[in-house]
């Protein structure tokens, strides 16, 4: 398994290929469709975003509320296609990584290659296990969105797998083709 520090400092994302298991350590941000919509509208209106996208990784997650004493609740990936409409714009602005699950549309896949980025999948249905990799969580913006608010997470060895790489690789296509009978 490759160990990667995030946010990306330089072009490390270029070394990642579809099918690679990666352990992420560092700071990532959470955002789902409602937060994406707001960020997108903010960009359109010429406003400034709650955080600088340059080199960053966004995790598509709406966690369960933490119990008293817990850092965060269950925190597995949500379906990424919810974000597809907004993603190319964010990639254009410097976003380098996304963590979710499921297919991306053609526009997103093209933008991943064009701007250089990586789409990772976390394991859907393993939200309890992923929660253990999250060491800090801090509310950053859009508190009124509740579970969908933007949070800054510090993660240690968060296991993800590369689906779409910056070179056009697509594990959903390659993996299934290998095992189709």
């Amino acid at each position: 398994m490759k160990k990667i520090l995030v946010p990306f400092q330089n072009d490390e994302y270029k070394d990642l290929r579809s099918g690679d298991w990666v352990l992420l350590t560092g700071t990532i941000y959470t955002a789902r469709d409602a937060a994406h919509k707001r960020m997108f509208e903010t960009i359109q209106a010429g406003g400034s975003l709650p955080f600088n996208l340059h080199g960053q990784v966004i995790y598509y997650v709406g966690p369960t509320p933490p119990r008293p004493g817990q850092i965060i609740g269950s925190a597995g990936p949500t379906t990424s296609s919810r974000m597809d409409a907004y993603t190319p714009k964010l990639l254009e602005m410097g976003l380098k990584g996304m963590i979710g699950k499921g297919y991306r549309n053609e526009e997103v896949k093209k933008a991943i290659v064009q701007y250089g980025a990586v789409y990772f999948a976390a394991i859907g249905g393993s939200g309890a296990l992923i929660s253990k990799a999250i060491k800090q969580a801090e509310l950053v913006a859009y508190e009124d969105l509740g579970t969908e608010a933007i949070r800054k997470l510090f993660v240690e060895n968060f296991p993800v797998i590369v689906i779409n790489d910056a070179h056009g690789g697509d594990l959903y296509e390659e993996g299934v083709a290998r095992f189709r009978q």
Partner: protein
Amino acid sequence: MRFIDYQTVVDAVAELCKQANFFLGKDVLTAFREALKKEKSEIGQDILKQLIRNAEVARTEFLPMCQDTGTAVFIVEVGSECHVSGGTLTNAINEGVRKGYKDHYLRHSMVRDPLGRKNTGDNTPAIIHYEFVEGDRLRIQLSAKGGGAENMSALKMLPPSAGIEGIKTFVIDVVKAAGPNACPPLVVGVGIGGNFEKCAYLAKKSLFRPIGDRHPDQNIRLLEEELIEEINRLGIGPQGLGGIDYRFGCQN
């Protein structure tokens, strides 16, 4: 006539919400272990191991297995000699959901209307299907199914001439289209017959059967086996990353 107190129903429903979100059913865990033995994809094996570990973490550390703690869907069998006293059964079930999701720190995913999308704040209203039966028992079953899987559901009106082949083709196409989005490995619920809404209900109801349970009718049982085999040949694998043991049960 047997009387059941309103609060008894509320507490039982709250307990169900906890059970469904923190404790993986034995049938599912067994299916994960069986799949691990058969899976040929290394990535697939890794994922199945993570899912087994996830169930262990959820149980011991009291974290929900998935962050999508589901839409609360109930199938309720109400005996003709059974009466809930102190309020309506529907209110008791909704109150149980409210209590269960709040007390156990589960996520509220229900919105007031699909366009405004304002969260109701307590995961109600529950979706409740009633079946009226003989006897003095009240039987409440809950499925806390998440949106990722639910959103890949589909229904098709087929002419009788489509026959069994038409049904199979449709089921396989739906599973193929769902790919990784529904978080495979999956249990596929299939409803055949009735009308538009009855068919959808049959499909949902079939998900309440334990994995490995087979239909009593031999022809349908054969159809279930054939569908499992053909779906596993699609190569979708755990999480849609390629593999064989994609689906544990097909239930009609």
